[in-house]
């Protein structure tokens, strides 16, 4: 008897699992594969909210080509093997478009997986939209036709940061601290190379890598930074690694300038305010709340109102979704092959204003970049972060044309 129940239950489960596939035709599904647990969850979760917010907006306007947009979150655990299992799960659930951002190691695994999958399954291709993994190799030696990247790659960001640092004569001793994986290593080597070129007088007094998302107390690292006498820290850390680093620096009272990629992530702003590092923490990004551009500020207001004060972290997610929708509407199809063909050469006005374009040679998106510093709001800036009363302020802007870097990508295109 028991066994009969079990069989019935399994049968029901199997049917339940099949049901969504039947309705797939009138839903546009996007799989969001990012850390939703562990040390990367604080940023992965917020990224998901960005996509869900945009999906809600689209659905309120009647969807895309009359189809409802649905974003499904899958937990990558910031682990490449785990991510591939999730990608497979998404494909099995009928998803043809996946997006991912956190961890370049995961991105490399997915890029490779998608390329091979598409080779084996012509007419059932998968499209991979990368909103945040910035290891340069993804659009260089590893580049793939099915991968599109909306964030500026790590070398573009480092170019922008070091161009700004070049003008700051107070920088004498620099300390590099990064996560020990492909992206962290690339930040580390780019920083070293560019600083030696642009400011040979700067002394690099430390070059540290630490385990990715495993360190729970950065106090020993901060003690070392302090002992080195560094006046400036460069870090590509993200997720809890940047928040905890800033927190440990706050606890120890480390007075140094921070040049970062992701100081804006959860907990970062609070820690900066706590150490009173006004206008001493810099971040390089593609836009922020206080850029004086009416449409993005209106979006920011609505976003914060809906998500309980959460700020827009990822203007690039808005760019990605805008372009995806435009490509689908122009192609009048949700076939990844047709979407990719449209995306390849697309130009748009980006979230914070200004021209952005997708380069068809390597599928890297180029857009204006900003260097922003964090401090008390001035000059009519309206938006603070994490209720600190402090916000981002543009200290340098790089126009699209000046962000272009060469690529060695030799892309295999589908015939």
């Amino acid at each position: 008897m028991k066994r009969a129940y079990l069989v019935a239950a399994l049968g029901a489960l199997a049917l339940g699992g099949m049901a969504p596939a039947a309705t797939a035709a009138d839903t546009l599904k996007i799989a969001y594969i990012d850390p939703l647990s562990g040390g990367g969850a604080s940023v992965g979760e917020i990224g998901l909210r960005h996509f869900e917010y945009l999906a809600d907006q689209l659905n309120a306007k009647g969807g895309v080509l009359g189809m409802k947009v649905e974003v499904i979150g899958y937990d990558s655990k910031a682990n490449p093997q785990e991510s591939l299992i999730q990608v497979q799960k998404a494909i099995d659930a009928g998803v043809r478009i996946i997006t991912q951002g956190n961890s370049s190691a995961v991105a490399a695994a997915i890029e490779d997986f998608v390329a091979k999958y598409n080779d084996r399954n012509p007419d059932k291709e998968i499209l991979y939209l990368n909103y945040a993994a910035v290891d340069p190799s993804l659009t260089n030696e590893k580049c793939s036709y099915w991968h599109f990247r909306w964030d500026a790659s790590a070398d573009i960001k480092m170019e922008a940061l070091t161009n700004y640092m070049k003008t700051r004569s107070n920088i004498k001793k620099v300390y590099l601290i990064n996560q020990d994986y492909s992206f962290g290593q690339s930040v580390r080597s780019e920083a070293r190379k560019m600083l030696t070129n642009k400011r040979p007088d700067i002394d690099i007094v430390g070059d540290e890598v630490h385990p990715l998302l495993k360190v729970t107390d950065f106090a020993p690292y901060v003690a070392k930074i302090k002992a080195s006498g560094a006046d400036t820290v460069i870090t590509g850390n993200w997720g809890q690694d940047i928040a905890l680093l800033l927190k440990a620096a706050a606890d120890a009272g480390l007075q140094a300038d921070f040049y970062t990629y992701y100081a804006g992530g959860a907990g970062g702003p609070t820690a900066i305010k706590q150490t009173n590092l006004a206008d001493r923490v810099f971040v390089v990004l593609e836009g922020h709340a206080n850029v004086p551009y009416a449409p993005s500020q209106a979006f920011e207001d609505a976003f914060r109102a809906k998500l309980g004060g959460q700020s827009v972290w990822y203007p690039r997610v808005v760019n990605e979704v805008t372009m995806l929708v435009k490509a689908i509407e122009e192609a009048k199809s949700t076939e990844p092959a047709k979407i990719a063909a449209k995306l390849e050469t697309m130009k748009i006005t980006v979230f914070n204003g200004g021209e952005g374009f997708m380069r068809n040679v390597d599928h890297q998106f180029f857009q204006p970049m900003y260097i922003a510093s964090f401090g008390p709001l001035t000059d009519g800036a309206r938006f603070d972060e994490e209720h600190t009363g402090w916000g981002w302020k543009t200290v340098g802007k790089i126009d699209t044309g000046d962000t272009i870097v060469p690529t060695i990508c030799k892309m295999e295109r589908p015939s």
Partner: protein
Amino acid sequence: MLELVIVSTLNGVLYGMLLFLMASGLTLIFSMMGVLNFAHASFYMLGAFFGFQLSHWLGFWPAFVIAPLAAGGIGALVERYGLRVVHRHGHVAELLFTFGLTFVVQELVQMVWGKLPVDYRVPPSLDFTAFTVFSTNYPAYKMFELATAIAIFLALLTALTRTRIGLIIQAALTHPNMVAMLGHNVPRIFMLVFGVGTGLAAVAGVIAGPALVTQSDMAALLGPILFVVVVVGGLGSLAGAFIASLLIGLVQTFAVASNASLAGLLGPIMPGAPAVVADLWNVTVAQVAPVMPYLLLVLILILRPVGLLGTRDT
């Protein structure tokens, strides 16, 4: 340099004492029941989450007392209605039971508090700078963690060596049957030790939660290192666990502070790396810091299997 040494020593001792809070219970349980309690770090996590929730409702100080009691109570129940039942089926079953328990606890924590880190803050009454060494501030909260850990170590040592119940526990460690023959209720002693041991792990959770990150993978991050402490210190030896905890705390902290590498060490004698070890050549001690405790574990097992202060084989 002196500054780095002093600050690293403080940080190392602090980390070591946190490890000891957890390892003290684990080592007693291990030597009494002969079973490695895989779920020990889960009680550390429970302590942190209980501490977070209770300090949200009642304030930090009531949470500091109630959370360990609650977690310890759950620990005692687990022993009474879980482990004791499984015990009949031998050590493998016990091992699997505690192993499974880690997943159950993790899933439960995720169901209740979610997968994101919770906002567990240092209480305002301890949120100031205790003192400044050279130019580094040392937070008062860290001093509080240190003081709590030392106080508990002293209390535990006194209880085990100077009280009647301590004598019985020590006797039950080595000769459980004899102690039972003398009319003591050995199962109840086991339950007590399990409850107190998991309660101590929870104390570590309550005080470490605000300083580190309180999230559902915190047990998995810390669990493996506890076993290193127990093995290195020697089975059932509280003093051994104490020394091993401090040793691992200091080794890890100082390893992070060190910039030594093979290239630096051998550079003057043989410039240029031999091709086979080119990758290893420039790796600094700081980069391998996370592996150091496990290296210690391997070395101890080879050179002194009973552990630093242990008296019998694992």
